[in-house]
């Protein structure tokens, strides 16, 4: 039966921009970067979770027809995609470090519900919540 989740794809505005953000700013590693015609299968993973990849994909034709691809680009840019969460050991320290790298935070660290959390967005508009491990 099912052993676990292997890949979750996220829509990006621009794969080069996304790669720079997820690798050089957030510290993920490239797992796959394969070009096939106009398609580019691009995934990153975290060192602690070798079996789990985030796909950094662009909505594009012909998988989606032009109007739907445009709609998906608009949805991502409007911040309409569902929330994503990652954990950090020390939210305030991670906030300072990532902010210094130019990461766009939408909420400074706040202590509540027995933890500390902050919010950031990737360049495309996807929202991440950064939560201190309890």
């Amino acid at each position, binding site marked *: 039966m099912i052993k676990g989740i292997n890949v979750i794809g996220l829509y990006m*505005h621009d794969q080069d921009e996304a790669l720079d953000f997820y690798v050089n700013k957030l510290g993920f590693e490239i797992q796959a970067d394969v070009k096939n015609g106009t398609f580019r299968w691009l995934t990153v993973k975290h060192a602690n979770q070798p079996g789990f990849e985030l796909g950094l994909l662009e909505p594009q034709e012909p998988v989606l027809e032009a109007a739907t691809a*445009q709609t998906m*680009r*608009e949805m*991502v*840019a*409007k*911040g309409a995609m569902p*929330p994503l*969460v990652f954990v950090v050991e020390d939210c305030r320290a991670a906030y300072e470090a990532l902010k210094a790298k130019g990461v*766009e935070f*939408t*909420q*400074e660290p706040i202590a*509540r*519900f*027995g933890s500390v*959390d902050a*919010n950031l*967005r990737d*360049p*495309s*508009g996807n929202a991440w*919540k950064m*939560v201190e491990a309890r």
Partner: protein
Amino acid sequence: MPNQDPALLRRLLRAKDRMDAASHEDWPVERLASVSGVSEAHFARSFKDAFGTPPHRYLLTRRIERAKALLRDTDMPILDIALDTGWQSLGTFGRVFKDVTGQSPSELRAAEQASAQALDQVPHCFISAAYRPNLKSAVSEKRRQEAADKKSAEDE
């Protein structure tokens, strides 16, 4: 709805994010427009096209949402909550709050605290969104409509 340039939408989202982060602050159009890199003349229209609500009404929903959370989670005096969430006076806060939610701040606090739930298992943004009023018309319009409904009910 016409297509909107994703790059523009991303910049409009930045203005929305800034209101989210500091809804108690004043957000005149020129301030929002400069966050988005859009002219003041185009900002309000572009924002409404993108997010379905004018920027000032969006800000109002965030202020009410925050006030509801403070009423639910704290014992802060209602005056302090009003000032803390961006209102200049208790009177205006109380009136607008009731117009939007249908309850006065103290009624809502009593009801929420009576039905306290375990919220620590749900991410904060999710709880927060659940408390946001779904304000589809201007408050003044809502007030007029309710007055008209009440009148027609009385006439029948």
